[in-house]
């Protein structure tokens, strides 16, 4: 069992909040293949298509047969810890502030021997363990040696927490608590140990089912928040922005029209105002405060979650203007990711397929249940995933899109 971190210890307010530092971020273009896999939470290494040799670290040509036909493929994550050591000195600013730091040499079952960051509960060498690929605070892929079996409080490991965005003991803002997804998110975050959850709600005179119930959770504080109102977003950020560790941007407006099925631009403009400009307003007002707290102890500002849509990848014509607004939001989220990265704050983009909610009423199943989506988001935060495609539909579309974007465009429009 790992040692549990305490959430009750409050920050000493007379000490300066340390500025965020990052671990070394430079990677070759080939090495970014590992980052791409880590972003999805997949353990992939290069494998030679000619001789089958698995490669590490990433390289241009096979170290055995010199073939350049190397592909990123999923690998067995089991391995054996050959040796472990603890760093007590580093000239790197990031690690210098986090010493001592445990490292190990692991022989992977799939072939290569790798240097990995080592979880405190991994037993001394020789020992069986599991190797995960994780994104570090610089947004780059690293390997982490984990105990063979899950244990209680494993996610509380001080080193592991540098690679994840665990909601435990953190303060979270969910921008819309009136939607089914928002309510499921609040419940899932509370169950995951979030210390405080601010729940935004727009148009207070509209009473929607479940919202009153949500406010009975001890972690929950309701805040009037309308992402279409710049003044309101600014005021809420001024009030709580310096406390928010995880921001979940889930307010969305979804109408079910293409171009021909709705006269005028008003419905589409309303979608853009919430789905795109809403994100921009939140990013401008909450971004600076969160960037300032990227290294604020064990409960630092750590993640920004955007509820996008699989339709951001390819337009779904029956929901054409909604798709366009989510594509715009995805592009902006990439900009936000670049601006948050120097502070080590991860931007998690979520691409669900059709959610089982009011506006997808006429779409046939399978549809993603709000509770399943919320659970997937919490899991992604715990595992440090950056691009989340929750559910079977999203996974299938992702594979089709990666395989042939043009084919997916035609399939969705037929």
């Amino acid at each position, binding site marked *: 069992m790992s040692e549990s971190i305490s959430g009750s210890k409050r920050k000493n307010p007379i000490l300066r909040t340390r500025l965020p530092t990052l671990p070394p971020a430079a990677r070759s273009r080939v090495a970014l293949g590992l980052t791409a896999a880590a972003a999805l939470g997949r353990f992939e290494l290069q494998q030679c298509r000619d001789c089958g040799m698995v490669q590490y670290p990433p390289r241009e040509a096979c170290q055995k047969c010199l073939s350049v036909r190397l592909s990123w493929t999923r690998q067995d994550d089991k391995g054996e810890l050959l040796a472990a050591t603890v760093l007590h000195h580093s000239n790197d600013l990031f690690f210098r502030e986090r010493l001592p730091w445990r490292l190990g040499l692991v022989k992977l079952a799939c072939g290569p021997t790798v240097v990995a960051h080592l979880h405190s509960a991994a037993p001394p060498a020789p020992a069986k363990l599991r190797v995960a690929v994780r994104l570090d605070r610089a947004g780059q892929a690293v390997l982490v040696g984990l105990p063979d079996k899950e244990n209680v409080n494993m996610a509380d490991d001080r080193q592991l927490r540098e690679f994840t965005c665990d909601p435990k003991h953190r303060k979270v803002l969910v921008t819309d608590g009136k939607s089914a997804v928002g309510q499921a998110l609040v419940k899932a975050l509370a169950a995951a140990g979030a210390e405080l959850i601010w729940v935004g709600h727009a*148009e*207070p*005179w*509209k*009473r929607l089912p479940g919202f009153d119930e949500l406010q009975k959770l001890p972690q929950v504080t309701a805040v009037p928040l*309308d992402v*279409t*109102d*710049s*003044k*309101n977003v600014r005021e809420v950020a001024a009030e709580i922005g310096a406390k928010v560790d995880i921001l979940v941007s889930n307010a969305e407006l979804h*109408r079910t029209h293409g171009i021909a099925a709705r006269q*005028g631009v*008003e*419905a589409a403009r*309303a979608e853009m105002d919430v789905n795109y400009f809403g994100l921009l307003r939140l990013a401008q007002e909450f971004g600076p405060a969160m960037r300032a707290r990227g290294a604020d102890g064990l409960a630092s500002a750590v993640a920004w979650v955007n509820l996008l849509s699989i339709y951001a990848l390819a337009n779904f014509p029956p929901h054409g203007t909604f798709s366009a607004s989510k594509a715009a939001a995805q592009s902006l989220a990439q900009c936000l990711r670049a601006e948050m990265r120097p502070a080590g704050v991860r931007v998690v983009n979520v691409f669900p397929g059709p959610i089982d909610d009011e506006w997808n009423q006429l779409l046939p199943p399978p549809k993603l249940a709000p509770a399943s989506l919320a659970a997937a988001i919490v899991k992604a935060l715990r595992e440090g995933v950056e691009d989340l495609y929750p559910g079977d539909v999203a996974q299938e579309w992702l594979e089709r899109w990666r395989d042939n974007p043009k084919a997916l465009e035609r399939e969705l429009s037929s």
Partner: protein
Amino acid sequence: MSALAGFTRALSAGKIRVVDLTQTLSPEFPHISLPPEMGQAWPFRIEEVSRYDERGPAWYWNNFSCGEHTGTHFDAPIHWISGKDLPQNATDSIPPERFIGPASVLNCSEEAQKDADFLLSVDWIRGWEKKHGRIPPRAWVLMRTDWSRRGHDPVAYQNYDDTGQHTPGPDVDAVKFLVAERDILGFGTESIGTDAGQAQHLRPPYPCHYFMHGAGRYGLQCLANLDLLPPTGAVVIAAPLKIRNGSGSPLRAIALVETA
């Protein structure tokens, strides 16, 4: 002395008081909400262009956006289907002298306090006329409910439950009576809508919109400070923006009141 010279002299001498009948335009002020599948009026929103900064060093200004029916606003006859083909039915074509008229202020505040769904009836109006005299032709008839005092509390102001909005307004016969037998200029309320919150269930639905606009008369909504007006004797000036073919407009409605 000319009438206008006498007027300006009385104004500067404080013998005529100007009462602001307008709610402040702000993002927080409640806006009309239709079922979500329908087209929606924009709420009032404001974005800073510059504030003595790198975007404009010596000046402060904003862009604002809102629907024609936002905040304290004017309804033109073209707003409703019954008034769509009338002459001079839009904000740009209404003759400007129609924006000024004597005010008859019907104090229903006690009734509205007891019953949010209070409907103003012909009998009620006749009772008021017994005390204050017949409503003159071309008058603004303003239904005072003190609803404007809820303006700082959007939940109380909108007053929704799961059957919709509950706010006071006129009944069908009262609207017909005011148009046909009193020839009024228009009807004003303190809540969102010249019709009652539940007026979609009247026959016809939204009678004040249907008959008032069908007869080329106007509406004023979200008025404030009606409690500062006498039952008769005030003059209301309510000029909408000159929007081409506009169905309505936010406006600065004011009343002139002679002090005793």
